[in-house]
């Protein structure tokens, strides 16, 4: 956990999101801020964050849509939903779309930090599993090359 967790905070309530970013910085997490869905998607293209904290109700592309797109293009990004409007159905939809956790505003900072750390751990584990699979495939390929060489 030596590496700094890279966060992307997406919320149209600037007052809220800027303050939250500042607090995260104090907790050793570098965070970018986006104030709407479009910006958030643009920023993801430029450099993928580890964890995304996403509001649902936003002007333009709303949170659910952002979540859907992100999970499609960058499935490795863990998304934590943090919303003041969320209903039970929203929660269900988000979890199905692959959100890591779902929180309601206002949220206790410690709890959010814990959630972010959990998400980051999850991301690392996923990456490791993927790497192991890739390695196994490499080995298999190597074996096959060797066998084919023997036949010759």
């Amino acid at each position: 956990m030596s590496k700094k967790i890279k966060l992307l905070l997406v919320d149209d309530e600037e007052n809220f999101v800027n303050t939250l970013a500042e607090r995260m910085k104090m907790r050793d997490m570098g965070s970018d801020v986006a104030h709407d869905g479009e910006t958030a998607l643009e920023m993801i293209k430029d450099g993928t964050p580890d964890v995304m904290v996403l509001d649902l109700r936003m002007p333009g592309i709303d949170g659910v849509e952002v979540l859907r797109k992100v999970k499609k293009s960058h499935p490795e990004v863990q998304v934590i939903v943090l919303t003041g409007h969320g209903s039970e159905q929203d929660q269900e939809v988000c979890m199905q779309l692959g959100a890591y956790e779902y929180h309601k505003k206002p949220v206790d900072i410690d709890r959010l930090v814990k959630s972010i750390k959990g998400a980051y751990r999850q991301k690392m584990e996923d990456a490791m599993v993927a790497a192991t699979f890739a390695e196994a495939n490499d080995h298999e390929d190597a074996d096959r090359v060797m066998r084919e060489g023997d036949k010759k």
Partner: protein
Amino acid sequence: MRKLADLLKHPLRELQGEVDEAVSPERYTLLRRKIIALMVAATLIPLSVMAVLNYYEHQNAMAREIQNPLRVLVNKTKNSFELFLAERTSTVSLIASAYTYQELADQQKLARIFSVMKREFEGFVDLGLIDEHGTQVNYVGPYTLQGKNYADQRWFQEVRLKGKYVSDVFMGFRKFPHVIVAVQHMTEDGRTWILRATLDTKQFERIIASMSLEPDADAFLVNGQGLMQTSSNNYGKVLEKVSFPLPPMTYEPTVVNMTDPLGREVFLAYAYFPDADFVLMAVKPRSSSLKTWYTVRGDLLFIFVAGVAVVLIAAMRVTDALIRRMKEAEDRRELALREVEHSQKLSSIGRLAAGVAHEVNNPLAIINEKTGLMKDILDMQGDFPAKAKLLAQVESVLRAVERCRGITHRMLGFARRMDVSIEDLDLSELIRETAGFLANEAMHRKVDVQLDMDPELPRIVSDRSQLQQVFLNLFNNALAAVADGGNITVTARPESDGVRVSVADNGCGMSEETLKHIFEPFFTTKKGKGTGLGLSITYGIIKRLGGEISVESTQGVGTTLTITLPKGQREALA
């Protein structure tokens, strides 16, 4: 009567009624009366018509059955009479033709002829030969009538005119009822003479006796003037005037009803003779002959009366059941309406609460973060004089935010639960949550609310929002019942096939009378404040969810409401 006719014209108008009209008990009474009247009319009118028709048909059939044999008998007897008279007339006629005047005028010869006649044909009393001047020239018989002149007697004139004559029964010179048969004969030389025989009416009596009538019946012969030709039992002796007027003339045997001079209802069967001036009559009292009819009539009457009674009872019963059903349906409908109203109200309150909660959450989050940041900054600062005090303020704000969070989330939870139906739920959590709504009021009134939940309580499949409503109702009632500083204990325990929850308070309790009506809609003891729907809706919900609800109460001691809920739900509810 006009009302009944009107009712028959528009029988359904009353039954359709105005659906939304408030239904008063008087209206049911009126409706009941009208339905009964309609049913009774609809059944009794055909029944009565049938009974009356049946009565007359039966009566006629019975009368015909009695009259026909009588008619036949009269006809047969009339034929016997006619045959008898025709035989006698032709006998006399034969003798007149077979013998010459000289032979008949001979005393000895006539005596011989007469004795043969008497031997062959019964009923001849004497035989006489009368010349054209009406003088009896020769005579054989028990009387001394020789030389008697009949020239001025009616029968003599008639026989001279018609050639043949049969007299009525009369006494004549002989002083006993008899009939004369006279035949005129004309010799080739143009002389005319008359042969005259007398018949005694014993033969008539014999023919009538052969009818073998019942003792109370009567048969007799009457002539055209209404004089009795034979003796009767009840209507006079021979040659007396018959004691009732003669019926209209007809040769066909006919039966008429009449009241005889003795005052009896009788059938009179009669027939006029075409060849003689006689009417044969037979009288039979109706009372004896109609005895079977009377029993039939009694049966008919009994069946009719029993039918009417059955119809009346059935109409009453059916109508009562109908009205009761209608009343129940009306009540149920009313309750359902109120329930919908109530839950709509709850649901709109829920939506409003959700809206407020959502709107409040965002600024609350800002306060939370801003204050959080303040706290973070403060934490990083070295000690300065006001740090501790400032930190305490910040902590206090954060606590307030946390409290607000609790409120808004509960409001959201309440709203959310308005829509969801059957789900798997943790009852103790639901009870805790619901009790939370009233925690404030309880606190202010210093009411001690104890939640005693069994940790082993199974999850149940049920309707969250409905259960929430149920517990809200129960807690509200308990809170309303206890005095300030009272106790409410909510106990939840697992049961064999579900969960048992009881809400006990040490409030005012209720009387037996109140207990009886407690689940009825619109029954309330909170005068002016309650709708009287809370417990009836609760009852309805619990029943729908497959549970049971019961209440125990002692006045002045407290009330315990107990609910049992099944673990699972029946398919129909899912």
